[in-house]
Every structure is written in C-alpha cells, then in structure tokens.
C-alpha cells in the first residue's frame, strides 16, 4: 500500500473505531435519552432532513439562516480584522494601542463574549454580529499584523526604484505577501464564526441551527440534538476542507510544490 493509501485507511479507520466505541457505550449505558446509538442518530438526521420541523420550518430553512449569518458576520469580521492588522503594521500608535487591547479581548472567554453581546445588543442579528466581531477581529488583526511585519523590505525597495505608485505597491507587493496570513486567518476565523453564531442562536436568537439545538434540548430529545449537531459539523467540514482548501490552492499556484492539503 502506498503511503497515501495507508494514511487514508488510518483516517477512515479511526472514525470507524470511534463509531464502534460509541455503539458499545450506548449498549452498556442502555439509556437512549442520554446516549442514543449511532443508528438512532442517523435516523434522526434523516427525519430532520425529510420532515418539516416545529413551526413548519424545514431543516434547509434553519441551515440557510445560520449560513447566512455566518457568511455575513464573517465578511464583516475579516474586513475589519484585515484593516486593523494593516493599520497596526503601518502606524506605531495603532500598533501599541492595539497590542494592549487585543490580549484583553483574546483572553476573554468566548462564551462570555457571546453572552455579553446578546445581552447588550439584543437577541437579533446585531447581537450575533457584535459577538463574532468581538471574538474574531482580534485574532485576524494579530495574524495580519504578523504578516505585515514579515513583509520583505527588499521587494518594496525594488518596487520603489521602478517608481511603482501606492496602488501598484498594495496590489502587487503588499497583498500577495499577506495572502498566506490572510488565508490562515480565514480558515481559523471561519471555524470560530459558525460556532459563535450557533452559540448565539442557542442563547435565543430566532431560528437557525443553534435555535434548533435549544428547541430539542428543551424537548429532552438527545437524538435530535445530536442529529442536528452532527449534521451541521459535517456540512462545515465540507465547506472548510472542500471549498476553502481549493480556493487556497488556486491562490498559491505560483509555489512549485503546491500540493492540495485537505
């Protein structure tokens, strides 16, 4: 077996082992209200996908709501984070003021930040936006700032001897050097964003997958709660590894040994 095939076999094998452990645990506990068997969850997912849920809203509606919130807040957070990170790289005043604020924000427990955001700004779109911005922006800004610091000064000098204007410098010299940092922030920030959105929905924002977690939690239906969670995690895995990894691959095709990493 080739090295790659072995790696894939181990990856798939570990998931199968986990499923078996789960299965035996559920038999040992014999309490489906606490730990349903894997097949029960699988059936729950099918039911979620086929049947209209409470208030006549289908699973696709809730997933759509959550994805919409995730993409919108993620976009805002990325733009703000990149802008602040760049500003930190360009202006010492901003660098120093941010370097004292950002650790505060990063140290704050995420769950508390989400809780405060919805308490202050309401159980609505603004609340979830503030929660995402509060958690994700400091992280993105720090990453971009590191990228700005690692910028190759010799290339900037080269561009200046040819009298490249500001626009050319930004588009052809600065941004391409920042791109690896933007992508790494992008992947991590996306993972954080959907978790925060789901959490804010669980706290009581109308509709979305978090809303459904809480709905089924109140109904004491562990099957449905786990069904929703596992379904959503699989969807997000596909987005993160299938879509973003390919985007990244396309952006870095100039690297000679650029192999697709998923």
């Amino acid at each position: 077996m080739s090295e790659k095939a072995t790696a894939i076999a181990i990856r798939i094998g570990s998931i199968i082992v986990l499923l078996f452990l789960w299965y035996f645990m559920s038999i040992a506990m014999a309490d489906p209200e606490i730990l349903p068997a894997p097949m029960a969850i699988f059936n729950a997912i099918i039911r979620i996908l086929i049947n209209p849920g409470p208030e006549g809203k289908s699973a696709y509606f809730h997933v759509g709501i959550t994805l919409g919130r995730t993409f919108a807040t993620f976009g805002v957070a990325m733009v703000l984070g990149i802008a602040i990170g760049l500003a930190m790289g360009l202006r010492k005043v901003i660098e120093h003021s941010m370097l004292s604020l950002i650790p505060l924000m990063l140290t704050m427990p995420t769950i508390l930040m989400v809780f405060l955001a919805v308490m202050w700004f309401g159980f609505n779109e603004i609340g979830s936006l503030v929660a995402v911005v509060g958690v994700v922006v400091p992280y993105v800004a720090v990453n971009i700032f590191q990228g700005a610091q690692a910028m190759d000064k010799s290339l900037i000098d080269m561009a200046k001897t040819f009298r490249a204007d500001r626009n050319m410098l930004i588009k052809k010299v600065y941004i391409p050097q920042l791109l690896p940092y933007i992508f790494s922030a992008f992947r991590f920030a996306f993972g954080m964003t959907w978790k925060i959105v789901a959490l804010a929905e669980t706290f009581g924002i109308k509709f979305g997958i978090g809303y459904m977690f809480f709905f089924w939690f109140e109904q004491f239906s562990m099957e449905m709660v786990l069904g929703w969670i596992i379904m959503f995690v699989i969807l997000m895995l596909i987005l993160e590894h299938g879509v973003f990894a390919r985007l990244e691959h396309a952006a870095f095709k100039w690297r000679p040994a650029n192999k697709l990493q998923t």
Partner: protein
Amino acid sequence: MQTDNKPATETVVAVNNLTKKFNAPMTGEEFVVLDSISLNVDKGHFASIVGPSGCGKSTLLNIIAGIETHDPSDGGTLEVFSHSDAEQPRVGYVFQNARLLNWLTVEDNMTFALQSQKISKDLWKERVDKYLEMVGLEGQQKNYPLNLSGGMQQRVAIARALAIEPDILLMDEPFSHLDEITARKMRFDLMEILMHAKPTILFVTHDLGEAVFLADHIYMMSTKPAKIFKHIEVDVPRPRKPEDPVIFDLEKKLVKEFFSVLDEQLLEDG
C-alpha cells in the same frame, strides 16, 4: 537629488564631492559612509566601482536609485539626467538577489516595471519579448520565478531592468550570488547585450577581473570611509576575452595597486 534639465554633454550621472554621513543608532556616533565621491557616467558607457565588501558602494547606488536619501548638508551633489521624453530619469536596478515578485509570472514581473514607469501599454508585449530574448529566456513568459534556477531568475531581473530602457542601469554585484560557472556565462552574455543595446551602466563589484572584463571606466574605492582613489579607462574594444593579454595584464596591475592601497589602510587602522 534628481533633476531633469538636460546638460550639454552626454552625461547621465554626475556625482560631485558627494559625502554621506550616518549616525550609529545606539551611540549616535557619526560615521562617514561616503567621503567626497566624484564620478561621471556618460551615455552608453559602462562604469564600474570596485571596492571591498561593505565599503559603501551599494549606498551610492541606493542614493542614485532614490531609496536612500542624501542630506545636502553633508556636502556634494548628485544628479541624474534624463535623455528620453520621460519626466524623470528612468533608473533600472539589478540587485544582488533577483528580487522578483514570485507570485507573478516572468512576463508580469516585467510589466510591473513597465507599468510603474508609466510606459504605454501598447509597448509592453514587444518590450517583454525583446528583452527576454536578449537575456536568453525566450518562451519563459508564462513561467513562475520559483520554477527557474538562480541564474535564470537573475536574467529575468536584468530583462526587467532593461525593458524600461533606463537612462541608467544600476547593477549591484549582480553575479556575486551565482556559482562561478554561471557567473562567467552571465558576464559573456552581458557583454553581448552591451554590444547590441548599448545601455548606460553603473556596475558595482568587488571583483577586479569582472570590472576589467566588462567596464570602460573603473573607479577604485577604498573603505572606511569610502573614497575613490583611482579612475582608469579600459580602452579595449568589445567583444573582449578574459584571457586577452591586455585585459589580463591590466587586471594584474590593478590588483597589485588595489591591495597596496588597502594594505596601507589596514596598517594605518592598526
């Protein structure tokens, strides 16, 4: 430090008694980096500055290129004259490393320079093709720099600098990071380019043999502070051969002279 009024002569770079001082960041102690440097580069000439590493040769090129400043109160003047219609003199710079934008194709690296110089888009393709062929890289337009060897990357850098058809082409030890066989081949090819394109070049090196082989004018520079102590004209028609006795004897003579001056300096420094 750069002006665009055209002089009567064919002078492209005129450096007169240029002095550059520099304050050490920690102690504030003043260093003289360049000590009343005077040199002239005329249109179509190849001038070379030869001096030991770290003597301030690159600083001079950087001032000409406008990426380091010269404080007029330090003394002296430096002027670059444009001989084209461009508003400002065009400066092409080939560094020790290729300094290519690795995320752009070879062609886009060259058009980056052309666009920066505000050269009409209609000319881009023609210039790229012409100068890539001149450096022996025809057909590499769509390739990415990291797929090329170090020598080929440096050829792209030379093509990029030539493509803007600069008033002055600055070259800062452009072959010093290459292995000797590649460097030797590059020197022959540069000679070939000189005979066809006739660029005006100011070439910095620590290798006297390289300077004698390539240049029309050699300025020998001592170190700490950098001072030009001799100016020689090399009146040998191109193409030259490194084993040509005239070239070989001149190199031997200059090496002797060069080290006698440097040794003297070493003794003075204790």
